[in-house]
């Protein structure tokens, strides 16, 4: 099976995908434009059986074993395609961040791994804010306009029962750990107006503290994925500019419900 998409500006094609995995992959990447036919400059990733393993190769010496672990093949392929697109993109900063659209504009949610970014992003989405992206948020370099990154959310943890009750059933065709879906690449997104840095903290109800611009710039720079096109000085300059034009808060909470309610009150309150 041959499948091709444009992801972050890069035309990427996956060759040799079994039909079942191809169907799941189409579901996961449904928000990206498909390429039919694929243009000549398309980057091909080819899937081949190698003994008991499945190897993905890029024709330029890179090869990845995509048969290991509990994750389905479609998840491995999706990860490699997205990773390849990020590696090749020189026009955007890609942040480890959730993003939702609030009344004032787009709110980025950043934090260390395990701090609760996905939980908080899901909570805000489930309470009516439009989902712009899962934990990867592209920002156009220079203008710092955020973009929808239509990769389905990866729900691989225990979530609040209150949150789970609000999430509609997973559509058919999604691998077990993916849902919900943020929309389509190219959907308009408002400029960034808010930044929430989430941390585990001692407060069950969640507590917000205003964050200084320098700390916000520092945290944003840390959240940028260090791809081969990453330049620390340029990234910092852009993140300083972004921090200067948005409202930043540190949110500490020991519960996802407390974090969700506090963040929602902040964003819905304008």
């Amino acid at each position, binding site marked *: 099976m041959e499948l091709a998409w444009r992801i972050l500006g890069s035309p990427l094609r996956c060759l040799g995908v079994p039909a079942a995995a191809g169907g799941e992959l189409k579901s996961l990447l449904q928000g990206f434009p498909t390429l039919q036919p694929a243009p000549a400059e398309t980057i091909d990733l080819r899937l081949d059986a190698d003994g008991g393993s499945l190897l993905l190769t890029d024709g330029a010496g890179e090869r990845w074993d995509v048969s290991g672990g509990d994750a389905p093949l479609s998840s491995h392929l999706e990860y490699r395609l997205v990773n390849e697109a990020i590696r090749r993109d020189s026009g955007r900063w890609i942040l480890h961040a959730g993003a939702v659209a609030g009344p004032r504009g787009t709110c980025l949610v950043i934090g260390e791994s395990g701090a609760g970014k996905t939980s908080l992003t899901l909570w805000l989405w489930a309470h009516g804010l439009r989902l712009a992206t899962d934990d990867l948020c592209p920002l156009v370099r220079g203008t710092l306009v955020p973009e929808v990154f239509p990769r389905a959310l990866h729900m691989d943890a225990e979530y609040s029962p209150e949150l789970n009750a609000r999430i509609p059933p997973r559509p058919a065709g999604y691998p077990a750990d993916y849902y919900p879906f943020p929309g389509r690449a190219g959907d308009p997104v408002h400029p960034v107006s808010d930044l929430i840095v989430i941390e585990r903290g001692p407060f069950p109800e969640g507590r917000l503290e205003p964050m*200084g*611009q320098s700390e916000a710039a*520092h945290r944003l720079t840390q959240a940028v994925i260090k791809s081969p096109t990453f330049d*620390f000085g340029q990234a910092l300059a852009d993140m300083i500019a972004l921090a200067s034009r948005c409202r930043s808060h540190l949110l500490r909470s020991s519960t996802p419900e407390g974090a969700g309610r506090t963040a929602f009150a902040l964003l819905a309150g304008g």
Partner: protein
Amino acid sequence: MQPREERDPKIGLESGTVFVLAPGVRLEPLGDGSAVLYSRDLDQSLSLNHTAALLCSYADGQHTIATVVQEMSQIFPESAIDEEALFDCLRDLEARRFLRWS
């Protein structure tokens, strides 16, 4: 507050010491009074609060610590300047190679 006169032989820091940003280090002031220090050589940045940002704004190779304390006292006449905290901040920045004595 009197400037500290005793010398720390390990650090070489005294009130007459002049300090300067290390080569390749840039101070980026922000609108809220905080600042970011960026080292191109280290590929690292530091977030500075208002006081540290103000302190680093004197890192021009001209100001001694004593003159900085004096100027800060004029800027904040109602507050006692914690000279030890300034020394600690400078030592920390020097240890991180963002600052050096000249």
